[in-house]
């Protein structure tokens, strides 16, 4: 009797975890409603939150009783990235999610944890995407993520500050740029927003990329980072942006909140970020929004180059359950129809890798499109070309150089030491 009781108890104990950790997997069997967990940062204050939720709701209504997509909210981008990496590293993944396409994320293509879309994209689906987008997400012939959001990061100029300082035109060369900086400081403002903190020193990393565009031209990332002098030369220019009051006193150690906050507060004249920031500037700083003009960075040997890169790719967990796979593909196809992508783009200002017919933007969105369309060339950013630990070293090395404790050569050498 006692033995039977113990066996029963053991059986219950073993069975409990399978219920607790099933995570909707068992529901895909038979005719039951298939549950898809969509883990995303497009929630809360994110400008894509409302249109994404609307599309998910529409999909759920259209597939009532068959498929149900549940949004798992992850409002913190850095924490989300950590969570996804940890999950993927442990061999699991949310049913649908997004990642920043970079050399670390693409390493997961070698695993079986991601769903492979290669065959699916051989059909009509591929025509939904802009030219070259699918190729940017294809490695060794496999497409295991869907390009979704593109990042373009031209320079944001606060023309009220520039005009008050006596600068009527956007600086076209570095001489004009430094001249404008002096005038802006004389008028009581700070020329540029910068930051060394966060996981990627975002704003300063983008300034560095613009400088590289100007002095290194297209294909600069094909050069050897450790030895090519263009990277040192660009570092010297970036360092100058940190000296003599050319940026705010809290830039060293500051994060995106610091960098963006100064621009929103009308304290800095020049800033860099992507189109996803337009909605925030419009709602939180209407005066700055009204004064904002989008344009290229100062040119040198090359001019009018822009920084553009895949920002977010949609990804799905691999599954051996054909019904679940079908449901996931059905949802992803829904999210990537031109009509639905247009809804997201229209509402958020985001620029997508999916065709978005008929989208009309506000003044700044239109300037973004013009800046990208008129660019002499588009080049990806530092983050796209290196692994996350190299990216993390960028901010640390920049802080050292900007503090006067490392030269531009040492800045490059410190980063290069992490490239393996």
């Amino acid at each position, binding site marked *: 009797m006692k033995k039977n009781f113990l066996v029963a108890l053991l059986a219950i104990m073993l069975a409990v975890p399978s219920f607790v950790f099933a995570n909707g997997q068992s529901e895909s069997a038979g005719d039951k409603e298939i549950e898809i967990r969509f883990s995303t940062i497009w929630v809360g204050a994110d400008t894509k939150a409302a249109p994404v939720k609307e599309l998910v709701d529409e999909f759920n209504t259209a597939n009532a009783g068959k498929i149900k997509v549940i949004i798992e909210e992850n409002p913190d981008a850095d924490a989300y990235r950590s969570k996804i990496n940890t999950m993927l590293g442990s061999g699991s993944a949310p049913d649908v999610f997004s990642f920043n396409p970079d050399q670390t994320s693409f390493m997961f293509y070698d695993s079986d944890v991601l769903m492979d879309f290669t065959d699916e994209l051989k059909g009509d689906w591929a025509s939904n995407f802009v030219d070259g987008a699918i190729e940017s997400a294809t490695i060794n012939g496999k497409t295991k993520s869907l390009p979704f959001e593109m990042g373009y990061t031209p320079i944001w100029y606060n023309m009220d500050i520039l005009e008050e300082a006596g600068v009527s035109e956007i600086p076209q060369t570095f001489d004009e740029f430094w001249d404008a900086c002096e005038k802006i400081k004389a008028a009581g403002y700070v020329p540029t927003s910068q930051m060394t*903190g966060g*996981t990627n020193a975002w704003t300063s990393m983008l300034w560095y990329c613009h400088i590289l565009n100007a002095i290194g031209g297209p294909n600069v990332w094909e050069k050897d980072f450790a030895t090519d002098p263009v990277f040192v030369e660009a570092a010297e220019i970036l360092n100058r942006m940190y000296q003599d009051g050319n940026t705010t006193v809290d830039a*060293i150690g500051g994060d995106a909140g610091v960098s963006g906050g100064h621009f929103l507060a009308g304290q800095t004249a020049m800033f860099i970020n992507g189109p996803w920031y337009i909605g925030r500037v419009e709602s939180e700083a209407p005066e700055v929004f009204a004064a904002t003009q989008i344009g290229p960075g100062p040119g040198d040997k090359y001019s009018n180059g822009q920084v553009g890169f895949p920002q977010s790719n949609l990804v799905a967990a691999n599954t051996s359950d054909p019904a679940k796979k079908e449901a996931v593909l059905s949802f992803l196809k829904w999210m990537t129809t031109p009509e639905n992508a247009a809804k997201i783009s229209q509402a958020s200002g985001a620029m997508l890798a999916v065709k978005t017919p008929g989208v009309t933007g506000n003044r700044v969105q239109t300037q973004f499109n013009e800046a990208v369309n008129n660019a002499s060339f588009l080049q990806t950013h530092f983050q796209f070309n290196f692994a996350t630990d190299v990216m993390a070293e960028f901010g640390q090395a920049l802080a050292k150089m900007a503090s006067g404790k490392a030269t531009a050569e040492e800045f490059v050498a410190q980063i290069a030491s992490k490239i393996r």
Partner: protein
Amino acid sequence: MQNKNGKMIFIFLLPVLILFSAFFIYPLAYVIATSFSKWNGFTAPQFVGFDNYKYLFSDENFRLSLRNNIVWAGVLGFIQVPLACIMAMILARRPKGWKFLRTVYFLPNVISQVALAMMWTAIYNAQNGVLNALLTFVGLGHLTNNWLGNMDTAFAAVIFQQVFYIGYFMIVILASRLSIPDSYYEAAELDGANILQQEFHITIPMLKPILITTITLALAYGMRHFESTFLMTGGGPAHSTSVMGIMLYTDMQALRYGEGNAIGATLVIFGGATIGLIRYFLTKNSDN
């Protein structure tokens, strides 16, 4: 009878032993084993011998992180715990409002580290921070600084915000202090001992076991310190506040699990050895 008791003890210990083996011994062995490999977490690890350790110990930033962990351990063990002990001794004398003060000192321990880190980041902010505003207000404007962005002050600033959160150790020491019979102090007072003499000759010797325990705990917290530094500076600027936990985290994010596990193994071995050594010196006299 003794044999039967031994079996019972073993049976009662078995569940804990199984759990401890499954969730500590096995992962620890796995971490150590894979620390000798190049491994991205999802393909088969490739054995690389001591390469990960050679790389780490040749890395200036790793040595700096190790040093920072040791400083953290020292500050928590030999500044925070003594501060907590002093405060516990004062409160044990039951001055007016001592219960209120006890609660106030303990309060930060129930507040999220994230909230505290955010608060201190705002206090230290170079442009709009309270600290710089205060310095300017009292005529010390020349001392204003980018506290978390200056390589020379960031580490001290991060430690400073943590060292005064003495509540946890204070409560532990206070509980032990309140268990010392009042008659000891009454007798000492009759013999003419003043308060300081009473504390040095009665309280501290009686508290020695709990002090060794709290110092050991503080050293362990210091060796594995991560949260507030990660939240406030991410280890920057220029790695000046970095600790081994942050280096481990960065390696894990970059899918360098072999190197990350080498850091983890070093942390366990080095931390264990340091704590063991300090405990040995602290308990040496007691054992005698």
